[in-house]
């Protein structure tokens, strides 16, 4: 999605704050929280820097900016993106079911299997909700 430069600056700051906050979780019990914060922070920083560099290059070269906007809004590209997302979603749905069966086979705790099944159900209900929503809109 095309976002404004300020959005990525905010994301960069949030990423830095996440990494900074991770240093406050020194306790052994809080290690997973620190790890998650570092992961989220690194992700935000990486994404923001990449997008800010792109925005900077586009600002220097208005033709490039115009072309990237055309490419983003191009109806064929939108169709390709949406089709790819839909197919990736279908593949993910079967992967989630596969993971659910694996958790049963490896005798994982019940809550793990249930969590995976709930994700699968959320996927289906979200799909049904969106179908209903778009049928009303179109």
């Amino acid at each position: 999605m095309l976002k404004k430069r300020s959005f990525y600056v905010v994301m960069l700051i949030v990423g830095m704050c996440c990494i900074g906050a991770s240093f406050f979780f020194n306790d052994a019990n809080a290690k997973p929280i620190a790890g998650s914060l570092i992961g989220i922070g690194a992700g935000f920083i990486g994404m923001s820097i990449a997008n800010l560099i792109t925005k900077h290059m586009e600002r220097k070269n208005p033709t490039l900016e115009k072309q990237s906007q055309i490419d983003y809004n191009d109806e064929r590209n939108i169709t390709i993106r949406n089709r790819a997302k839909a197919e990736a979603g279908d593949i993910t749905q079967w992967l989630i079911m596969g993971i659910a069966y694996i958790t049963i086979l490896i005798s994982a705790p019940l809550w793990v299997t249930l969590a995976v099944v709930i994700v699968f159900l959320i996927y289906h209900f979200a799909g049904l909700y969106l179908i209903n929503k778009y049928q009303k809109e179109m």
Partner: protein
Amino acid sequence: MKNKLEEIRRQRGIKQEELATALEVSRQTIGSLENGRYNPSILLAFKIALFFDMTIEEIFIYEEEKPC
């Protein structure tokens, strides 16, 4: 759906890039339209027709699918 887009564009001496810029689509979209790999939305079809000052039917040819 077949179309005469490439033929019309060549007759007018317009490059794919120029047509793409005028229609605000990518050059690849023009290529795909000309090859018949992609059918345009009704909006893009109107834009193309307006650009060439023609009707949609003069550019795009609808062929009904034959029953098996």
